[in-house]
């Protein structure tokens, strides 16, 4: 959904400045979107330090891709979220190649060391809002959205691991996203 013509012109000028490396434009971009980028990163990465690292690298990526921004296609916030999300998933996948992912839908059966308990408390803080919504989804949708959104797995990987057709996984994700949006709207209405 594109922004109004006035906002499009403002966003285009801003991103043209960012693409040129104009310091003031980059500061304006940071002031406008750093909170959003940080919250996205904090939700899926293991720690605040990782989230802060990610914010820094996302803004470098935003500078590098600024010349490709087309305000007639999407609002700037959509572009920033898309770039951020893609960076975070790349990072999650790189980390997963070295570490076993923290799959949220798995039960932990071994008592966790103290630092892991702290980490899980931190995780609860981060996922509190999201998990309360995800918990209301049917089982398959809950599994798919958790693995896809929080763990950065591809739909194909999820389908293979759950031994479920790709089309079913794709539909489950779409339906889950719609339901999450509806939950959000209901939450705002009450």
């Amino acid at each position, binding site marked *: *959904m*594109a922004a109004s013509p006035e906002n499009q012109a403002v966003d285009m000028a801003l991103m043209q400045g960012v693409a040129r*490396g104009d*310091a003031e434009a*980059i*500061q304006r971009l*940071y002031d406008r979107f*750093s*909170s*959003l980028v*940080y*919250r*996205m990163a*904090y*939700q899926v990465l293991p720690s605040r*330090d990782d*989230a*802060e*690292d990610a*914010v*820094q*690298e996302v*803004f*470098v990526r935003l*500078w*590098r891709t600024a010349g490709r921004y087309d305000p007639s*296609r*999407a*609002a700037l916030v*959509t572009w920033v*979220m*898309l770039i951020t*999300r*893609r960076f975070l*998933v*790349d990072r999650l996948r790189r980390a997963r190649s070295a570490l076993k992912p923290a799959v949220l839908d798995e039960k932990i059966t071994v008592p966790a060391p103290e630092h892991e308990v702290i980490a899980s408390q931190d995780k609860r*803080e*981060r*996922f*509190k*809002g*999201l998990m309360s*919504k995800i918990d209301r989804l049917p089982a398959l949708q809950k599994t798919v959205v958790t693995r*896809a*959104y929080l763990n*950065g*797995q*591809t*739909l*194909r*990987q999820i389908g293979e691991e759950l031994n479920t057709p790709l089309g079913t996984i*794709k539909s489950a*994700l*779409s339906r889950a*996203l719609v339901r*999450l*949006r509806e939950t*959000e709207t209901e*939450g705002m209405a009450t």
Partner: protein
Amino acid sequence: MTIKDLIDLAPAYALKTLDERQDADFTAALDRAPRHIQALVWDVITRTLAGIEGTLPAVQRALALRPRTLGLVAAAIAGEKIGEPQTAGASPIVGRIQPPRRTVNPLWRAAAIGCAAAAVLMGVVWVQMRQEYAALDNVFTSNMLSEKFQRDFGDAFESRLFSASTKFVQFAAGDAAAPGKAVLIIGEGGSAQLLCRDLPKNAAGYQLAVVDSQGRVERVLSTFRGGEQRAVVSVDGLPDLAGARLAILPVGEDKALLTSTNA
């Protein structure tokens, strides 16, 4: 990829849950699609991403993140402008490297070191003139240069290099025509970085040492390889060097290649 595929896969594309090939196919198909179809697909992408915004945790980023982020972007831009690679590999790092601090982005750290090495390579070291270094009248200083550093490398680089607590020791060869230049940047806690350029090849390496007035080694502070066009050597646990005379000597030789011009 059909129009239906594009619209069906748009949420998965927005969340980057397509595998690499599908993702590339989607991007190409979206670019080729008619304008009104692109608008439909972008509408789905927008709604998908707007949906996740409401699930984000209500947390605040640290204020210190702003200068670090802007500094990293400035360093990336500066690196691209001067054609310097942005990786640590661009500047051969010899000796023990300090463990990374989690609060400083690794890319930024590499860029800062690379830029510092580049500055020495260019033969221009901007030294903050302070009382204890008032004797450094042979060091080139100019407002223009400091502004260029700030513009090209950002505030974070400036705060690192020009902190009031940072001490600089400049080295020079006794013979002006002799090769090699170096500067030692000493931060808080006795940790320092020695930036060298054009040291001649020496298989045994080099020593950074405290020497007496006759040039005899009193204490070796660090040993490192030479022979690189430029090098950044990390040195930890330096003692108080106030009043000390420093030198860089080839290992096994007693004649200094470079000696400090200030202490």
